[in-house]
């Protein structure tokens, strides 16, 4: 798919269960390196669940269980000896609602690096992370203020900066703009475009325009009659939106359901 043929992460026959309920079934998908892939689909189709399976955030839900394989650089991240902490450092995540820590802006960015044993110059790391997140100019004079003093959009960019600071390879984004106003949303979308130069980005979005405008590839999910989510169609974004192969995809992108 990618002209370099590089795959950042891949799911093979992945099922996710919550206790006895199968939330997601039979997912096979490969994510190309340094591209933006959007996951779309109606509410409850399991796209967030799929996303969270890629850095083992589902581990935090006690009843959740993942079957099948998720291959990252040749290793199944659900392998027996794999440390989820190590996985999450390499595969970062940005959440639906901005969730800065109750610490200063500086500490918000520095904390992840510090606990992961970063030995370099912390000031430089904080600055470069905030610059990459396009937030530096707005906060450089108030780094010691609380992360909560920022606006919603700024908070979300702070969360992105915080994720970048630990230098992950892949950034998972779970509807990162759903809690933001249109202006702030636009800033984040621009930022995501910038970030794809360095990072593989997988983004769940509710908003089809966002997927069409901002992503390179799009995966459409739907759920079956047992409410288990599955992958319907996966293609380059322009292909999927202009020439959907599946009837359900077409109905969805033309707004006839979902």
């Amino acid at each position: 798919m990618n002209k370099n043929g590089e795959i950042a992460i891949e799911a093979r026959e992945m099922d996710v269960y919550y206790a006895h309920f199968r939330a997601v079934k039979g997912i096979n998908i490969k994510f190309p390196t340094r591209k933006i892939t959007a996951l779309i689909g109606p509410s409850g189709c399991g796209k967030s669940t799929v996303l969270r399976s890629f850095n083992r955030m589902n581990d935090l839900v006690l009843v959740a269980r993942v079957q099948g394989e998720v291959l990252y650089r040749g290793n199944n991240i659900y392998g027996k000896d794999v440390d989820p902490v190590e996985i999450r450092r390499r595969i970062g995540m940005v959440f639906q609602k901005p969730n800065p820590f109750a610490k200063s802006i500086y500490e918000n960015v520095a904390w992840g690096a510090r606990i992961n044993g970063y030995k370099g110059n912390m000031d430089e790391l904080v600055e470069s992370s905030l610059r990459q997140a396009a937030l530096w100019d707005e906060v450089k004079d108030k780094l010691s203020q609380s992360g909560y003093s920022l606006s919603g959009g700024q908070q979300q960019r702070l969360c992105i900066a915080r994720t970048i600071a630990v230098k992950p390879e892949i950034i998972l984004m779970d509807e990162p703009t759903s809690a933001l106003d249109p202006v702030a949303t636009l800033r984040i979308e621009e930022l995501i475009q910038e970030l794809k130069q360095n990072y593989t980005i997988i983004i769940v979005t509710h908003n089809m325009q966002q997927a069409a405008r901002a992503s390179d590839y799009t995966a459409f999910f739907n759920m079956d009659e047992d409410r288990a989510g599955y992958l319907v169609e996966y293609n380059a974004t322009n292909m999927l939106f202009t020439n959907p192969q599946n009837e359900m995809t077409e109905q969805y992108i033309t707004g006839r359901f979902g």
Partner: protein
Amino acid sequence: MAVQQLETGYPEAEALQRQISQRHRRGLRWRWLFQLSTIVGIVALLALLYNILNQSFGLVAVQNTVDPRVLLEGAKTAVLPGADTAETLADLPKETLVAILAEHISTGLGRRLERDQRFFADQFAFEDPALFAEVCAGAEPPAGCTLEPRDQNNVYELLLERVVAPDVVQSWSLVDSVFRRGAIEEQLRTDYPTAVLEFRSWITADFIVSPQSSTPEFAGVRTAILGSLWVVVITIVFSFPVGVGAAIYLEEYATDNRLNRLIQTNISNLAGVPSIIYGMLGLAIFVRAMETFTSGAALGVITDDTTANGRTILSAGLTLGLLILPLIIINAQEAIRAVPRSLRQAGFALGATQWQTIWHHVLPSAMPGILTGTILAISRAIGETAPLVVVGASTFITLDPSGPFSKFTTLPIQIYQWTARPQAEFRNIAAAAIVVLLILLLSLNATAVVMRNRYATKTA
């Protein structure tokens, strides 16, 4: 045109009006009853405070064993130095006061006083110099061997305490003192013609700093306050880390299995166990089974010979620690549960371990709530009486506690003991001690409220 009346089975027109207004009247009567019930609580609180303040202040009839004017007259008659110009006993020079003292107390008592602290640097008033030197050379020289001699004021107070010896022969409550003053004076003239009526606040600076005494006029709560503080320090040191630790375990680590459900159910059960049962547990485990440890014998630090039986501050503190542990755990669990999940997710998504996330983000956010709950639990511990009676708080000690292995008494124990005494003056000092206890608790609770409010505004 007449409207056709349908037979509905319900009252109509006037009957309906009557029925509704009747129902409203009933509603008002009940509403009044509900309101009245609510006021019962307030009335009870006011009655309680009234009762305590009423007993803490009031008139007392003080009768001197020897009238100070008689002593002064005696000094003038004997032409003792300084007596001719003195208007009260307090004006007399030290030598004269010592002379009066010597006249009224036994030589034995005088010697004891002199061994405690000498009257003069260059001479002895009661003691035989040779004997004194011998005692000072002995194994345990008394304080008087090294202390500076007493000053005039010290001797004057000694004279008041030992010779004038004012004694409260009767006390009246505040309300009686104000409204029945005439009758009280009347009664005083017939019952105690030589007594003097004076208004007394039983809460004084002296009351706070004096140790326990068998005469209510001289008794204070110093040992009890220190005992309470020592006990509560042990309680906090034990129950805070353990309680918060258990709450973290249950909220952050525990999976939903039988053992963990058992722990959770068990904690709610423990919160309902009567406090006296904890006292019996403390008696059996800390005082008796772990005696060598709680008495300090294991560490070789027995503070004084009589405490080597496990009935120490340490045992009491641990007992109260177990008692408030369920409260701390339940409160801390609520505070930890209130921390948004998103904060934990943010931590994990950066590659933090579970403990790093808890320590750096969950605990700081939960801390105000945890502290509020802990303060409330501690004020419960400070007010507890029954378990400490069972564990064996001492009823009468005059020495300040010196560490975790000391015998002790606490403020509530002191109140209990004094309340149980038949003499009215003990009721007065019990009331005074209650005022001290309530002020202590009030300030603690005020801290908790302030903390809760600050927390509420911060997260809003």
